[in-house]
């Protein structure tokens, strides 16, 4: 009942069963279905594949998806850092409620977020009506997509940065202050370098989520080809036209991007852990 020798002597049973089941289930649900997309696409020649994934409409959708995701993740990096700082360092009425609400975008179904934001930012909506006199349109424009992607990415930065701020050593800040540093210098030179890996990890997580996001965006986007059509929507459009090959080729592009993002995030986390290990 000892299928594989573990590095250290381990008397616990069930290694073969649990690992075997894990691998079996992982292959069945995740790996085999994902490989289907790559195998389907392999039947295309490189020219055919490139022809599908580089038409002007598709390229416009990449630009929009990435541009809006980068801006959304950037907004979250700035405001997420402030929110995390405020939640850790200050006490004020309503703080615990605010803290609990940070996770709302994880818990609220994306379709609900999508129709709620669309209703708010439409020209007759609560916020849209305030902006309309200034000629600012949000719903059914690229701005609306940025709003939706900011919403769904909000928890990532806060929740990755928050524990790092909690673990910050106050002594370092005291030392910096007693050596004559201003509070701003202390923040830039002492605090920021410590939380930077976590901040970047949060940014990358928010970006990765935003690139693949669909539910919250389709309602507010307006979905006009070349202007407000995101790549996941284009996949759906191709599927509805029974263009399975085209949909799969785009899916492969998105999968490759996902894998790259995953690699970047893992490297960032490794960096963050190493940094944290050295600090303590």
């Amino acid at each position, binding site marked *: 009942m000892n299928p594989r020798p573990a590095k250290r002597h381990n008397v616990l049973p069930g*290694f073969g069963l649990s690992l075997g089941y894990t691998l079996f289930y992982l292959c069945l649900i995740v790996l085999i279905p994902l490989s289907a997309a790559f195998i389907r696409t392999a039947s295309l020649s490189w020219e055919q594949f490139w022809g599908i994934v580089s038409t002007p409409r598709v390229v416009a959708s990449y630009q929009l998806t990435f541009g809006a995701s980068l801006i959304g993740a950037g907004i979250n990096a700035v405001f997420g850092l402030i929110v995390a700082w405020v939640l850790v360092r200050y006490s004020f009425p309503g703080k615990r409620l605010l803290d609990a609400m940070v996770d709302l975008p994880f818990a609220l179904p994306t379709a*609900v977020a999508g129709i709620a934001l669309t209703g708010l930012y439409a020209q007759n909506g609560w916020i849209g009506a305030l902006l309309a006199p200034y000629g600012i349109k949000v719903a059914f424009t690229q701005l609306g997509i940025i709003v939706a992607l900011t919403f769904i990415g909000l928890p990532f930065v806060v929740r990755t940065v928050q524990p790092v701020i909690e673990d910050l050593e106050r002594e370092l800040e005291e030392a910096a202050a007693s050596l004559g540093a201003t509070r701003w210098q202390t923040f830039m030179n002492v605090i920021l370098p410590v939380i930077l890996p976590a901040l970047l990890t949060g940014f990358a997580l928010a970006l990765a989520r935003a690139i693949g996001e669909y539910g919250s965006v389709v309602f507010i986007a307006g979905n006009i080809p070349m202007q407000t059509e995101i790549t996941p929507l284009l996949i759906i459009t191709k599927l509805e036209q029974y263009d399975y090959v085209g949909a799969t080729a785009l899916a492969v592009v998105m999968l490759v991007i996902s894998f790259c993002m995953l690699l970047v995030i893992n490297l960032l986390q490794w960096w963050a852990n190493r940094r944290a290990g050295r600090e303590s």
Partner: protein
Amino acid sequence: MSATTTRPASPAPAVALKRTATGEHPAIKWLLIGVSVVFMVLFLIIPLVAVFFEALKKGVDVYFAALAEPDALAAIKLTLLVAGIAVPVNLVFGVAASWAIAKFDFRGKSLLITLIDLPFSVSPIVAGLIYVLLFGAQGWFGPWLQANDVKVIFAVPGIVLATIFVTFPFVARELIPLMETQGNEEEEAALVLGATGWQTFWKVTLPNIKWGLLYGVILCNARAMGEFGAVSVVSGHIRGQTNTMPLHVEILYNEYQFAAAFAVASLLALLALVTLGLKSFIEWKTRHEHAVLPLEAPRQT
């Protein structure tokens, strides 16, 4: 925790010093708090309030009529059914995976953890698409399924599969770090005292991980009930048959039945609030337990 006890007794005025030397100017402090509150109210609170406001705008009668409508009831039932299958299946997987990963050393462990997290980085649309490629009419198993009269895509099994995919990592990623920090000592003690493997699991491991398990299940359930993109690819949007609640919301919204759409959406928003409430409760509960029970203290079971 232990740092505070090992540190030599520091003079009390240190607390007062902290406030002045390493605190921000009150104006900056309140500015930052203000920015945070405005940002969160704008992006989180107002949209949430808007859901309930729009749902109840035309009165309570319209609200309940929208929920009692047969298609809405069918959508609610289907959503409960899908979550009722996907969550337990992923729960079993999560426990098995975390047992293997946290309790044993083996090569390729970090690769396995990355692969388990993979569904989180895949776009929901792609998640739905890969099942169409496998089980759709033109898919690998399509002809065989058609010959045997089994429908997966545009039917309930496809919805369940897509939901399992998108909620795949939730329980495992909650349990792995928890079980890693708990170590193997308690299980080893149980085994030395003559317990069988299953007894050890049920009586020692499970009570230790129950809160983490519940935490993962709650998040998994919220996503399972609320998943939109992946499910919309495989569902086929057949009213009363393959529409989950989020898909029903979409259809009503696109038909300009806003009050009804927001009524169904408000149920999902309530689910989100319950999820957040339970999540906060578990966080409070576990912090509480940690504070009371040092790791070495005997546990009452």
